[in-house]
């Protein structure tokens, strides 16, 4: 879930940008280190970012007939690791803002935090944890992608609640409101994302 252009107050917009920037710098640094050993990966990162963007622009068929968009960051985190997903996710989100009008430039920092930092790390952590428990790959992949997606949406709801606390119930009530309303769209997306990621990983494993 993306926060739209201009929706966050300036202090929050700039604040989240400041929070995300070090992560981006760290991701780029670890990427650069990898590229010194494998210069040919530069092309790979570009193509992978394009593929992640393509996945995020897909309309998934869902049981209810409505359409939803996956984020693709869960799959990316599993394939490239969470560190690489910060810059890749940044590029995807910037392109979404500029080419699809999803999200925005002023809200890029906040969206990068929820979708390119929290999401991939949760996905990666869940995958590691579930795999360590000895459950099947499909279960691990499903939970990783699904929970990564949910973590993104919970983070976004918290960011909105933090920016717009409820005058009566404060941040807590505001969080409940945002999380509750967006759950309608985000829960099916998280499940869809999990399913699609399992199908993709299984298809890839066969090649």
């Amino acid at each position: 879930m993306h926060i739209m252009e201009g929706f966050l107050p300036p202090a929050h917009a700039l604040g989240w940008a400041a929070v995300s920037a070090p992560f981006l710098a760290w991701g780029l640094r670890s990427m650069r280190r990898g590229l010194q050993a494998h210069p040919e990966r530069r092309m790979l990162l570009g193509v992978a970012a394009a593929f992640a963007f393509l996945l995020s622009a897909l309309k998934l068929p869902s049981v209810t007939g409505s359409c939803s968009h996956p984020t693709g960051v869960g799959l990316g985190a599993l394939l490239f690791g969470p560190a690489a997903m910060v810059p890749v996710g940044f590029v995807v989100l910037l392109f979404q803002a500029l080419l699809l009008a999803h999200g925005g430039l002023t809200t890029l920092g906040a969206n990068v935090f929820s979708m390119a930092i929290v999401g991939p790390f949760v996905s990666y952590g869940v995958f590691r944890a579930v795999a360590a428990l000895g459950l099947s790959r499909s279960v691990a992949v499903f939970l990783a992608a699904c929970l990564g997606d949910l973590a993104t949406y919970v983070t976004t709801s918290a960011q909105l609640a933090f920016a717009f606390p409820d005058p009566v119930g404060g941040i807590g009530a505001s969080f409940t409101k945002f999380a509750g309303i967006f759950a309608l769209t985000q829960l099916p997306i998280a499940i869809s994302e999990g399913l699609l990621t399992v199908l993709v990983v299984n298809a890839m494993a066969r090649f």
Partner: protein
Amino acid sequence: MVRIDAAAYACRWQGVAPSAKGLFALAGIVAAWISRSPGVLALLALMSALATLAGARVPLRTYFAVALAPLGFLSLSCLTMVLTPATGGGWQWTPSLLPKVSVIALRSLAVMTAVLGLMLTTPMPDLLLLLRRLRAPELLLDMMALSYRMLFVLRQAWDEGSTAQAARLGHRGWRQSWRSMGLLAGQMAVQVWQRASALQAAADARAWQGSLRFLPASFPNARREVALALLAGAMLLALALGDWLWA
């Protein structure tokens, strides 16, 4: 994706220096952040929209089609904000919050129209040029340049693959659709590596030196355009500052 991209190449300001358009959009954003009264915010949004529609001649249909999704988000979020917890549990409609919420909505609109003005009139390669001038990290720029080009290649591959699947009843029902999408995405994910190595070979064949260097576009009227943008931007800022001081 195609709609915004095509509009940017087709509009009248396509050849205008991206720095000029960037400065004008920045002024629009800052002005929206400074202003406090709903009237001035609405005026700012209107001016940015008018500049895009009348100045750059972006078609009205395109403009609305692009703005539709963010407007959906906006209405849903604003609806959320005028609900407050009721004393006896549950939620209640609180009209007294409306003025505050409408300022948030109008500010959001004013920022959005400013950015729409930039993205609907500036092709991505020009935006990347602007980012390069702003000293964005080279690695990030390379990734963006390459992935912008590959977006269209992959998109076409996806559409063709998906059509071929439809011809074999791959989208007959939602079960088939899911399976088809999984197969196609999996196959294309595998292709990511092949495409990257083909691009690498092509770059090597042209004496690649380790980064993607391209000739920057030249904008012969850049000076005049930037001056005009500064003037127009200053107007927006003056309006906003006045509002901030006296509102």
